[in-house]
């Protein structure tokens, strides 16, 4: 080769030097907003912005005050340009700036002539949440909490670069991507009851592992059963308030009860699938004559080779994520059993639900008086089907689908239930969490010198993290108030609060 490799220079001091304003997208001016009621705002369809439908934002005054200058609203308008979009381009109450689609964006496109856009699912395909309930009370657990936190931290690889001890063989990885959570159950890492209480039974049909690249496989082969980093976490909680007694009873929740919440996704495998498919779509856009205001909205017709390939690859990655959460849940059960000296069954550890908040689903919805097949993109948004819907697990069909809404580390999370109006209001969708309002850098700056772990410990919350210095990125200050998000979702008829959960211990990814 002969020539000296360019050396990678390391700075002598911290690298952050400037704050870059969010890049402009299609709207050079702020989008127009019309208030419809206390929690709904319309972005009128503007043909000059190539919008095909209105935008619709679910936000109360508090949430909208933070959104006014957020480019997320422009992104809602941009999503409204997608071919085949029906209804409106929706923004859930926790919406914030994302890539192409805002985080908290929902868009339904007609299957017959609409597109699928990988950015409408996100890089972390099937990032989602699983909730387990127990027969333990917080008082019973308190003497064991520190040891339990240690056991969970040891049992579930977390943090930057979390890895398993071994790599899955190619045939194993294929099976994981095909079978999803059922693969783990088949290997003794869970029960059929877990699958019944998981969206899609923990397995999206139509997965085609052959469409997953070698690089994606390489990234994911030693990551099954790991939490990852960023805002992913494993949290031991206590139910401290019941808002919907009937649904709480059906879900198996009661005040004082210990619960466990797991938030993670498809790890490097899913991230790479999205990256690979975006590049394919980037070329396809020109072939199909699709004009877009933002390149990150790259898409292809659902009824095209590229569109079908994306859905099959996405399903493979989604199944990996469900297997991942199943493995982690099993590790959690084991940690509880070892710490408390009793089997998980004796502790009453049982799954409440597992749902995705980054996924595309082919569903039937009523649009303009007709029932049609659509592809519902939910990015940072959850399905929230009401009572009676056949996709809701049979034990819950009388009350509706559980909706799991984690808040931020240290404050509160919510269990909700899909509301009767969600199908009409939002294609059966709701918010997925609190949503950020401070960048990671801004949060670290604001909390410089503050020992987050010590502050949480002073409130009785055990924290375990690979990098305690990064805890500030995920501190409460960096996030919107999840209670405001839930209240808005209720008032908009998307979901209804069932129970509030407060943290006892957090394993931070």
């Amino acid at each position, binding site marked *: 080769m002969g020539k000296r490799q360019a050396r990678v220079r390391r700075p002598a001091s911290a690298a*952050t030097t400037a704050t870059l304003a969010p890049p402009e997208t299609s709207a050079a001016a702020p989008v127009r907003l019309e208030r419809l009621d206390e929690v709904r705002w319309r972005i009128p369809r503007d043909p000059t912005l190539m919008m095909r439908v209105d935008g619709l934002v679910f936000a109360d005054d508090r949430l909208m005050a933070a959104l006014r200058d957020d480019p997320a609203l422009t992104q809602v308008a941009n999503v409204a340009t997608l071919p085949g979009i029906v209804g409106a381009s929706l923004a859930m109450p926790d919406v914030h700036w994302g*890539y192409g689609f805002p985080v908290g964006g929902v868009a339904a496109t007609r299957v017959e002539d609409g597109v699928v856009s990988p950015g409408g699912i996100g890089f*972390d395909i099937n990032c989602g949440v699983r909730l387990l309930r127990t027969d333990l009370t917080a008082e019973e657990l308190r003497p064991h909490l520190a040891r339990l936190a240690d056991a969970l931290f040891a049992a579930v690889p977390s943090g930057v670069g979390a890895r398993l001890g071994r790599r899955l063989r190619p045939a194993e990885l294929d099976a994981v991507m095909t079978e999803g959570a059922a693969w783990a159950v088949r290997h003794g890492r869970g029960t059929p009851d877990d699958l019944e209480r998981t969206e899609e039974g923990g397995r999206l049909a139509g997965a085609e592992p052959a469409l997953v690249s070698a690089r994606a496989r390489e990234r994911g082969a030693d990551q099954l059963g790991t939490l990852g980093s960023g805002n992913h976490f494993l949290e031991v909680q206590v139910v401290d308030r019941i808002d919907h007694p009937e649904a709480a009873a059906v879900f198996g929740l009661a005040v004082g009860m210990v619960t466990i919440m797991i938030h993670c996704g498809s790890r490097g495998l899913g991230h790479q699938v999205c990256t690979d498919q975006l*590049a394919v779509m980037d070329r396809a856009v020109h072939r199909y004559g699709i004009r877009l205001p933002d390149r990150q909205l790259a898409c292809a017709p659902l009824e095209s080779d590229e569109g079908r390939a994306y859905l099959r690859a996405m399903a493979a990655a989604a199944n990996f994520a469900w297997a991942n959460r199943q493995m982690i849940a099993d590790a959690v059960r084991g940690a509880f059993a070892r710490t408390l000296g009793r089997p998980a069954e004796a502790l009453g550890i049982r799954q409440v639900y597992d749902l995705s908040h980054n996924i595309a689903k082919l569903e039937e919805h009523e649009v303009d008086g007709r029932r049609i097949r659509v592809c519902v993109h939910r990015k940072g948004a959850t399905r929230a089907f009401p009572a009676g819907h056949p996709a809701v697990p049979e034990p819950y069909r009388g009350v509706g689908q559980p909706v799991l809404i984690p808040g931020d580390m240290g404050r509160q999370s919510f269990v909700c239930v899909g509301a009767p109006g969600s199908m009409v209001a939002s294609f059966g969708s709701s918010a997925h969490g609190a949503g950020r309002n401070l*960048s990671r850098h801004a949060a670290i700056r604001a909390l410089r010198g503050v020992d987050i772990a010590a502050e949480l410990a002073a409130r009785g919350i055990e924290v375990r993290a690979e990098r305690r210095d990064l805890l500030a990125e995920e501190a409460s200050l960096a996030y919107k108030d999840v209670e405001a998000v839930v209240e808005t979702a209720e008032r908009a008829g998307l979901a209804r609060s069932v129970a509030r959960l407060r943290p006892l211990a957090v394993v931070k990814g």
Partner: protein
Amino acid sequence: MAGSGLTGTTVPRGHRILPHTADAGIAADGPTLEALFEEAAAAIAELSADVEAPEPSEAGEAPGRHVRRSVELSAPDLVGLAFAWLNECIGLVDVVGAIVGCRVFAVDVRSGEARLRASVDLAPFDGVRIRRRADVKSATYHGLAVEPVPGGWRLTAYLDL
């Protein structure tokens, strides 16, 4: 490919990390596209790893346990090539190790196609001297720009962490 601009003026090469609501942005500068893409890789390296290791030898050979990977990429245009390059770097960090050296031999842009040839030196993570700093999911098309500036080129990109 040399940059445009005022006679005798070249852009000093460099890179920096930029804040973003949830993730990170990077900016890179270079007098040529080759230098620009090297600086972009250096930004990914800085964001993704902490390295305390000896510099590569003067002969240019990857020392010790370093791994050298050859890279050839193509894309419909220069922005697409930047997307491919940044994501190749991100993928290599995830599966091999920290980027400790990089040479972009050629960036060719013609109508309808852009190509790149490079080699990347990587040091496997040992958790002691070579440690992961951040998990980078992907570089995005969102705000991705490769633009001529007086004396060279500038790249701006946003990364999903």
